[in-house]
């Protein structure tokens, strides 16, 4: 069942168009993620759903009912903001339970709910303290608890774990996913962190400068990015994007990047060429789809290139080389040892390549 629907929603602040023609719907029990860099319009969208911001154009429906004109308190939404506010004179327990008391639950029911959510968020040891005596990360979790404990049709989450340190964020991400899955809450979750988006989302909307770039499952976003913006937003290191042209030399096709040539099969090259309006093409490949071997090799895609820099990142060695003027990153196992200036050869499977239009940046499928 559909719980939330946005139809052609736009938001203007004076002349500035913050969000343009947004269209999406969220099913009951779905965790819908809005992913984008700062200034994308993510928070503005949440605020319009909650009613804190007016909609300039378009309609918002919650459970089939148009809510454009409804006050925030009449919408049955629960929202968590990035910048938190707690009642300083109340204990952590009271801060969490206050929305429940307004709902007229019994003390027993309230207690059960508060303890359950506090355990999940690992603040059950702090319930008797005042907010002044807990850390920033703990405060953020209290705010989150207060929003999650409330009964609502849609939960709106604005970067709820962004301020936590890396370790705790990692842990909370998993806990959050499990909690939402078990409780089957309907959620719109805003983040700039692609890992959070991929991990948590049933579907993801990628937003940039107020404009929808793609809506899809995590698998679609990662494996079939709709354009170069999406391709470079997800993955660490992100997808390599190389600008060039497809050339035919004798009977062989080549992808030319400045003075570097990469062979392409004629079947693939023909397919791409038939779909482009002009010469320039962007070739994309993920760092873990590239393989590198020490020294020169024949019959590989790039027989010889100099190592520009290497970085050991945890379990992986990220090797950078220069193709044309672009750095190409290759993710190798950390047992692959190589130094700056050494020669390596690079190979990949052709089916791992992505192609994008050189002008629009849109995916060529």
């Amino acid at each position, binding site marked *: 069942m559909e719980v939330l629907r946005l139809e052609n929603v736009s938001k203007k602040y004076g002349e500035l168009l913050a969000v343009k023609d947004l269209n999406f719907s969220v099913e009951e029990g779905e965790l819908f993620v809005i992913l984008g*860099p700062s200034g994308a319009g993510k928070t503005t969208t949440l605020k319009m759903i909650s009613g804190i911001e007016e909609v300039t154009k378009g309609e918002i429906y919650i459970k089939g009912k148009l809510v454009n004109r409804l006050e925030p308190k009449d919408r049955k939404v629960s929202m968590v903001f990035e910048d938190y506010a707690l009642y300083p004179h109340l204990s952590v327990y009271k801060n969490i339970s206050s929305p429940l008391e307004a709902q007229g639950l019994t003390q027993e029911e309230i207690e059960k709910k508060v303890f359950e959510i506090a355990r999940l968020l690992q603040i059950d040891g702090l319930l008797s303290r005042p907010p002044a005596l807990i850390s920033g990360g703990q405060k953020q979790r209290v705010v989150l608890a207060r929003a999650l404990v409330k009964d609502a049709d849609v939960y709106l989450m604005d970067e709820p774990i962004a301020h936590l*340190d*890396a*370790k705790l964020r*990692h*842990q909370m*991400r*998993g*806990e959050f*996913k*499990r909690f939402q*899955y*078990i409780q089957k809450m309907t959620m719109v979750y805003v983040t700039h962190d*692609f*890992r959070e988006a*991929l*991990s*948590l989302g049933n579907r993801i909307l990628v937003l940039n400068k107020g404009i929808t770039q793609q809506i899809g499952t*995590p*698998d679609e976003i*990662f494996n079939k990015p709709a354009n170069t913006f999406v391709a*470079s937003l*997800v*993955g*660490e*290191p*992100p997808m390599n994007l190389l600008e060039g042209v497809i050339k035919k030399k004798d009977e062989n096709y080549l992808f030319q990047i400045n003075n570097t040539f990469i062979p392409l099969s004629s079947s693939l090259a023909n397919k791409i060429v038939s779909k482009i309006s002009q010469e320039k093409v962007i070739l994309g490949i*993920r*760092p*873990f789809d590239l393989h590198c071997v020490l020294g020169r090799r024949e019959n590989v895609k790039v027989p010889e290139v100099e190592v*520009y*820099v290497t*970085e*050991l*990142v*945890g*379990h992986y060695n*990220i090797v*950078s080389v220069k193709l044309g003027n672009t*750095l190409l990153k290759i*993710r190798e196992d*950390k047992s692959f040892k190589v130094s*700056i200036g050494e020669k390596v050869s690079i190979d990949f499977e052709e089916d791992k390549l992505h192609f994008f239009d050189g002008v629009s940046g849109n995916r060529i499928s």
Partner: protein
Amino acid sequence: MEKLVLRNVYKFYELGSVEAVKDLNLTCKEGELLALLGPSGCGKSSTLRMIAGLEEITKGEIYLDGKIINWLPPRERNIALAFETYALYPHLTLFENIAFPLRIRGVKEDEIKREVMRVAEMLDLSSVLDKLPSEVSGGHQQRTSLARALIRPASLYLLDEPLSHLDAQQRTELRVQIKRIQKTQNLTMIFVTHDQLEALALADRIAIMNLGVLQQVGTPEEVYEYPENLFVADFVGEPPMNFIKVILIRENGNYWAKFYNQRIKIPESYKKSLEELYKGEETEVIMGIRPIYVNICEPERNNAISGKVYVFENIGDSNILTVEIGETLIRVELNPGYSFKIGENVNITFNPEKILLFDPKTEKRIKPQI
């Protein structure tokens, strides 16, 4: 050759207060990129500021190129600095900001121009040199601050969180540039960071600090694979290392770690160290294993430990599976391509060569002895 030596260095901000830095002994070799890594309040920035001369050393000595520099004012130390807050002159163009250290040294105009162009080229600033700081992005400002530090020859370059204000993409780009410049020009560099990935990616060696105390100095490989103690093991690596409390079992002179109904054989090389630690049947140790060294397997497999899927996360370039075994949660890092449902049965094994053991009392790693 040793470039910088810190000998028994202390810093207190007030008499009798907690030491911000406590008995620090550290050296940085010529041509080395050394990272000072730790959480906020660990003393890494105080250390950097003492080296720079921006803060007094309470006790101990700092030597640069073999000479004690404790009492030298900052400008006489031949040290170049780049700070987290860019501190650029707002009324000067990026060109003039970068040129500043050369101008005050009376370098000739044509040489200034040549040098600014050279560093700007390295840091991709050539196209924005005529702009004011307010007209460019944070990324450009941070690059400019770095260019200003790199433009003059110095014995030592100090970088304080040089990548902190950048978005993820700019950060990985600039990281590559810094490493490339440092290596190709053979500069001696110390940088401060709280980001363990940054330290692993950039540094030749990493000095990890906590609460003013040096925890370990080692290559990225050493701190990742052989952390000296629980703090380092927990601080370095993402997803974080799994820590499991286990009971030691001793039989016929061999040791096993008991974890629920499973016994995990501990390699022979630990025998000697465990002899010293073993206090009878209830002896506890902490087993540490990185998620990448845990694998899923068939239930029939020898040493298989069975559990239930707690949560499964596909984050694109890797899959993270959290398995619930009794009260313990264990993270497994897998290559992309898996799929699991919450509650599903699953079996895991540990790569026995990658198991680390820690003494729960001292929190130090128990080392094998040959």
